[in-house]
């Protein structure tokens, strides 16, 4: 049975698209047929992060409006087998998304995919509502700072009351916390909320902690999801996150400050 997973946060710039790209890629790397949909109509970014921006011909809105078929709009990833991208339209706005159209496209995708990842836009307006409405599970992406945590809290409230599962009184949307841009050094100094602080406020299970990492910016700019960088701390953290999502036990890494050894301190790293 195909699963629809929304990647959402409320606040912008916390790492939804980065997480969507690496999460979808990670699932596909493990052999699951996965599609990642950009719901940010008008502010299309996922294609850049996935490195397929020059291959967009038709988009999500075209499919909703029956101007193109799904097969025409789906972009097959060149690096990972069984990974597809459904890009957003850059020339339209969020009003182009409507429940019936989105539902039809998701139903069609369910026929052939294992996982459908919905990359939500920021905010709680139409685009975000459409991205979360049909979700079975949700990755709530949060930065360790108060405004991001409050916005995530708000999104959790909306998931619990306005999603299809809530409206039809089905089993609630399964929620997962993804804490991104985490910097143990700054937590230690007291500049940043700790994992425990965030967990205490949001009270949902922790799926992964992604450390603040220069690799994320580099990989975004080069159009390679950071999970494919097996050397980078953020890449390893995303691979762990995917494994945990699939039911494996993995302890959380990068939560404490790495003490530099004598030689590392002498010669750098």
């Amino acid at each position, binding site marked *: 049975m195909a699963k629809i997973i929304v990647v959402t946060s409320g606040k912008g710039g916390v790492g939804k698209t980065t997480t969507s790209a690496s999460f979808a890629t990670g699932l596909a790397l493990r052999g699951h047929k996965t599609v990642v949909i950009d719901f940010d109509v008008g502010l299309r970014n996922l294609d850049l992060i996935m490195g397929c921006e020059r291959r967009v011909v038709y988009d999500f809105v075209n499919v909703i409006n029956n101007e193109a078929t799904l097969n025409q709009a789906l972009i097959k990833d060149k690096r990972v087998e069984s990974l597809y991208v459904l890009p957003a339209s850059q020339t339209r706005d969020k009003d182009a998304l409507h429940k019936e159209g989105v539902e039809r496209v998701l139903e069609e995708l369910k026929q052939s995919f294992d996982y459908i990842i919905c990359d939500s836009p920021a905010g709680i307006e139409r685009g975000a509502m459409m991205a979360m409405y049909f979700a079975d599970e949700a990755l709530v992406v949060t930065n360790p700072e108060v405004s991001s945590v*409050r*916005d995530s*809290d*708000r999104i*959790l*409230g*909306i998931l*619990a*009351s306005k999603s299809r599962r809530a409206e039809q009184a089905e089993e609630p949307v399964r929620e997962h916390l993804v804490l991104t841009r985490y910097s143990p050094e700054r937590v230690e100094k007291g500049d940043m909320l700790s994992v425990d602080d965030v967990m205490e*406020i949001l*009270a949902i299970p922790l799926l992964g902690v992604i450390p603040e990492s220069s690799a994320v910016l580099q990989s975004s700019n080069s159009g390679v999801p950071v999970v494919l960088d097996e050397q980078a701390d953020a890449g390893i953290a995303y691979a762990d996150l995917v494994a945990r999502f699939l039911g494996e036990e993995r302890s959380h890494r990068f939560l404490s400050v790495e003490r530099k050894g004598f030689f590392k301190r002498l010669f750098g790293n």
Partner: protein
Amino acid sequence: MTQTPTAEAPFELKGSLFTLTVLHLRETDLGAIEQALLVKIAQAPAFFANTPVVVDLDALADTAARPDFAGLARILRAHGLVPVGVRHGSAAQLAAAAAAGLPMLPESRPAPRREATTDAGGDAKPADPGPHNRVVVQPVRSGQQVYAADGDLTLLGPVSAGAEVLADGSIHVYGPLRGRALAGVRGKLEARIFCLGLEAELVSVAGRYRILEKNGEGWGKAVQIYLSGEHLIIEPLTVEAGAHRKS
């Protein structure tokens, strides 16, 4: 009780006529209503000082509109109007108003009669007899609002910053209270707020409110909050006093 039948009764009931302001409701969008109210207040601020109003539903009576009466009453009260009742609504609307504590006022022209409110059970939710307790198991998140009309509100999860919980009776929070809690919103002076961790933004009992400072009185502790005269008292919910004496 000890008085003899011959003693004068402590009160007597008499009918009387009043001139009341009538608010003719044309739509149910609370945001729009509040906006319009603010405009009116700007025009005549002196008018909005505990002015009793009757909400007339004539314009909505033939529609399926179900105004959020509790929300409406709260907005009116917040702006100096005191809703005392409703009139001219459909049976279902009157039942909903009654559930929110707004009685139907006798009509000034032939329209649905009192029995309309009592037999509304068929097409509306049946009115619960007497006070009742609303229990919420899920966390109350930022931006959410939970109201227990006619009774107490019990919350088993945390109340987040930016959330609002309200009750006509008392509020019991078996977790941290980080948002706003308003007990006795229809004036019940004996209403109390209980919580296991006080980190609230604002607490209120029967309209008397306090904005709480971080690390202020009772912060992070299990407390109860109640009204003593005009003052809101925040008091730890512990047996420490007794325990200290023994040690």
